[in-house]
């Protein structure tokens, strides 16, 4: 829900499957009906009735304004600066909002081999704004990444977790805690962060989801195929 609120009406948004897709489709049903969803499989302006199972879902192609090749998505649409918001996930994030989705442990002999880069390096560097969604823990919020997979560009980066919101302002160098979700304290966030996280002077409290927002979320989840 907090991720959905990051999208403004008319934003062009490059999304992946899972939480980002759910958030973007939620925004499209609530406050951002003209939000343009681009999936990296090549569907531009997709308007799925239910959140898709994979970015290859025929529903995305059938409801899109146009369907283009993968080289075209990355070259003409993302690299050329036509994407406002890029949604990303990560296994690890550091104080500068650099992201790791490649390995835990040494690259040549990893403890855990993760899926890898996918579209993330170029989404991070080319989208005007980057929104990262991940769970807050000391395993994920680390002072030093095991591998640097993606580095957000100079635009603003917002990190949304289950505890609160962190932001790196445009041109800024480090993440700052800017909002706490209901019932969460600064100490809770610090305990789950592997470095000395700065806190904004005007630290905000996340608004609890409204009845309208919750109803839209439940309707979307109910529409998801098993």
């Amino acid at each position: 829900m907090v991720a959905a609120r990051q999208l403004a009406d008319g934003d062009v948004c490059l999304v992946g499957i899972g939480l980002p897709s759910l958030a973007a489709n939620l925004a499209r049903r609530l406050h951002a009906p003209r939000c343009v969803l681009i999936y990296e499989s090549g569907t531009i302006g997709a308007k799925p009735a239910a959140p898709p199972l994979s970015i290859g879902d025929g529903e995305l192609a059938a409801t899109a304004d146009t369907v283009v090749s993968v080289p075209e998505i990355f070259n003409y649409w993302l690299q050329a600066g036509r994407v406002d918001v890029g949604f990303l996930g990560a296994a690890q994030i550091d104080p500068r909002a650099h992201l790791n989705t490649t390995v835990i442990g040494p690259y040549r002999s990893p403890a855990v081999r993760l899926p890898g880069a996918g579209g993330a390096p170029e989404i991070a560097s080319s989208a005007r704004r980057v929104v990262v969604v991940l769970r807050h823990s000391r395993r994920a919020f680390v002072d030093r990444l095991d591998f640097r997979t993606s580095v957000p560009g100079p635009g603003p980066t917002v990190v949304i977790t289950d505890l609160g919101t962190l932001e790196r302002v445009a041109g800024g160098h480090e993440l700052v805690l800017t909002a706490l979700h209901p019932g969460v304290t600064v100490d809770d966030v610090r305990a789950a962060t592997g470095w000395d996280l700065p806190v904004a002077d005007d630290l905000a409290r996340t608004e609890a989801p409204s009845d309208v927002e919750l109803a839209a979320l439940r309707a979307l989840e109910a529409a998801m195929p098993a």
Partner: protein
Amino acid sequence: MAEIVPLAEAIAGLVGDGDLVALEGFTHLIPFAAGHEIIRQGRRHLTLARLTPDVIYDQMIGMGCADALVFSWGGNPGVGSLHRLRDAVEHGWPHPLALEEHSHAGMANRYVAGASGLPMAVLRGYQGTDLGAVTSSVATVTCPFTGEELTAVAALNPDVTVIHAQQADRRGNVMLWGISGVQKEAVLAARRSLVTVEEVVDELEPRPGSVVLPGWVVTAVAVAPGGAHPSYAAGYSTRDNAFYRAWDAISRDRDAFVAWMGSHVLG
């Protein structure tokens, strides 16, 4: 002009041990039937290229077909890990797997360069990442016109590219539609190519947004109805999501994996 041949004959003739092989199809039209035939014919020492290895490369890696993988995202889409890929990288089972990894943008541009007959492609990518340090086919170049430092990726020219399409006509002209991924680039970048199709028709009917590969750029066509199962084939079948979920448990355990492959692919 593409010959229309049985799948087993096509694989026997086109895919050799040690080849650089690309089975493409970006989440849609994944050539599972062809991958299974490569497993049945016991090909070894392949270098497998594909943006998203998906379940088909998990199966080929677990069955020992591959020495190396060239890729950009190796997960089970919407489900989680590819356990056979992880087991090969983390524990060397059934034998070690060399990785050459890129981003999607890099891989897509490598096929574009290959299809264009150029040695490399140029993009604004990989900035600030560790990928360039571990992947030798990424470098930087300076634009001669603006002085901007850009990223170069080496062309990818498979020995053979295999894709799945909806239709071919009797002369071997191929049509695919819906999400078209990098199939056109991967076929045009390859020395040889095989297209498996849902069906052969008398006439290809024009469709908006379709990709047509003339028969003279395709080496062989093989009829394989349902050949993309469990992935999608727009107009023919939808994704078998229950299978993608079930694969997580089947592939997690080596014995369960070998038993499943024995009864469903080799059998």
